[in-house]
């Protein structure tokens, strides 16, 4: 048995190295002395919480999402499914370090023009060049930059991993790696920057997204739908049994997602304070409510409350409360939960069968629809009392911060602003994802052959089975 060394892998490694050297060169060339500012004071409570949150969010992908998805596929594809989550974790970590963090969370590079900074960051942190043991990102002044960078990395990891649910059972592993790498850099980083970056245009327009309802969920869900449509339906869809092979794994996965999500939402406060506490509370309330919402909706509509239903409802609630978590009170969380539970149930069952697309594990039905419900309801339930206006402080040099509020406080325009954010993300993501898929399809092909799909991905793509 000969061992083939794929030349593509070598070519890729060389290309990455060359790019790294190029970028490092560019970064060093544009290093300029920073304007003197008041030295930021690190808070050990904030830092401790953010270290913990980082670990919690990583747990959401490995093994949370891996098990959640793994249990839902047929046994012949379970290893390929968990492999996707694990491999994406590894790949995104490295790409984030090389260029992702810089593109998402630094200011736009001046040599690219004045307006580019609204859409994507610059190269000042390529290879994390400018990160030291004590450096701080202006977006999170009380924690070390190393913690902030790694925390954001875990978000960048789970977003592409979520997309895997849409094309489960039929995508080539090589195509997956190329797709995930390109999607991270071309879609995730610009959108993350636009919403959360220091000069992002969506954040600047007033779009409220506390922990990533738009950046993570609408983004991943939309990309998932595009993938499902481009790759096409699975062979045997509608005629063969695609029943989940082990829902116990999915329950374990969903539970890890729930617990880990406290790091996702409460951690997005980037501080150990009341905002984080309220975010944790509303997360719990919305999730539980959504679980019940889906469960009861299914009980009425289909006759039995199912395990898959209640865990899907809970995840839908987690998704919907994500953009709202730092802005709403428990009462708002209750409504968001019900809306997400029932709405995503309808989207994943009725809408999907009406439109006939094969979104295998409901990446669109749960994450995109849940994200949209959450984003719009954030515009309704955001309360000024939780985010009042903060006047400018000459002593520390911080600018004034406007109050954040929604329809209940008299600001109906916030709902339209939220719609604007949703639309921009949806449109850009859909177009960019489509282009990336088509390019990869032309070069190496996206989908496995019929025989591989019939026999199972585990044996054919990875040489391993679960007996």
């Amino acid at each position, binding site marked *: 048995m000969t061992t083939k060394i794929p030349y593509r892998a070598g070519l890729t490694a060389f290309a990455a190295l060359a790019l790294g050297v190029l970028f490092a060169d560019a970064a060093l060339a544009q290093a300029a002395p920073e304007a003197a500012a008041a030295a930021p004071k690190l808070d050990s409570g904030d830092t401790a919480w953010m270290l913990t949150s980082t670990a919690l969010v990583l747990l959401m992908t490995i093994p949370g999402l891996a098990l959640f998805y793994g249990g839902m596929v047929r046994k012949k594809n379970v290893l390929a499914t968990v492999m996707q989550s694990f491999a994406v974790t590894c790949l995104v970590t490295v790409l984030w370090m090389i260029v992702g963090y810089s593109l998402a969370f630094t200011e736009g590079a001046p040599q690219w023009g004045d307006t580019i900074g609204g859409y994507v960051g610059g190269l000042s942190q390529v290879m994390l060049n400018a990160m030291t043991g004590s450096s701080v990102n202006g977006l999170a002044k009380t924690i070390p930059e190393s913690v902030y960078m790694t925390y954001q990395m875990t978000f960048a990891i789970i977003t592409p991993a979520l997309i895997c649910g849409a094309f489960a059972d039929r995508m080539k592993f090589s195509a997956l790696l190329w797709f995930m790498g390109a999607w991270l850099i071309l879609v995730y980083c610009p959108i993350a920057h636009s919403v959360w970056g220091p000069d992002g245009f969506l954040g600047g327009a007033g779009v409220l997204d506390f922990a990533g309802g738009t950046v993570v969920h609408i983004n991943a869900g939309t990309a998932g739908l595009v993938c499902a449509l481009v790759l096409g339906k699975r062979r045997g869809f509608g005629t063969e*049994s*695609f*029943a*989940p092979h082990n829902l116990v794994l999915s329950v374990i996965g969903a539970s890890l997602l729930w617990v880990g999500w406290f790091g996702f939402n409460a951690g997005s406060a980037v501080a150990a304070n009341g905002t984080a506490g309220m975010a944790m509370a509303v997360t719990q309330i919305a999730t539980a409510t959504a679980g019940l919402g889906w469960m009861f909706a299914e009980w009425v509509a*289909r006759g*039995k409350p*199912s395990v*898959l*239903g209640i865990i*899907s409802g809970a995840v839908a609630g987690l998704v919907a409360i994500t953009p709202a978590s730092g802005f709403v009170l428990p009462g708002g969380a209750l409504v968001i939960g019900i809306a997400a539970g029932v709405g995503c149930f309808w989207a*994943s*069952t*009725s809408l*999907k*069968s009406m439109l006939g697309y094969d979104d295998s594990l*409901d990446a669109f039905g749960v994450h995109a629809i849940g994200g949209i419900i959450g984003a719009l309801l954030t515009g309704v339930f955001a309360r000024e009392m939780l985010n009042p206006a903060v006047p400018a402080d000459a002593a520390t040099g911080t600018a004034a911060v406007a109050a954040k509020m929604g329809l209940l406080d008299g600001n109906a325009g916030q709902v339209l602003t939220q719609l604007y954010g949703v639309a921009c993300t949806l449109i850009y993501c859909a177009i960019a994802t489509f282009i990336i898929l088509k390019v990869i399809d032309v070069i190496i092909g996206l989908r496995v052959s019929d025989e591989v799909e019939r026999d199972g991905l585990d044996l054919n793509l990875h040489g391993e089975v679960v007996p």
Partner: protein
Amino acid sequence: MKIVMAIIKPFKLDEVRDALTGIGVHGMTVTEVKGYGRQKGHTEIYRGAEYAVSFLPKLKIEVAVAADQVDKVIDAITTAAKTGQIGDGKIFVLGLDRAVRIRTGEADAAAL
């Protein structure tokens, strides 16, 4: 010699084994199988997708006996495995040409 093959409902295994032991049959082979006859399957629903499952889990029991024992064996199995509901199963009798005990080399009647 004959092989008596019985397809029975899984929960009836212990009763059938006891009944066969009672008439002097001390060995059997059991396989987990799926099948259907007149018993209908069930429907599973996952996120709105319905799957009709026609094959039901059953057990297949095979015992090798002398030809003159066959009637006693059939009676024992029937009595033990019967519930009166559709899906109780069936018994088939097949001819057996030779039998050998591996440890000792005993053949035919001595091997049963």
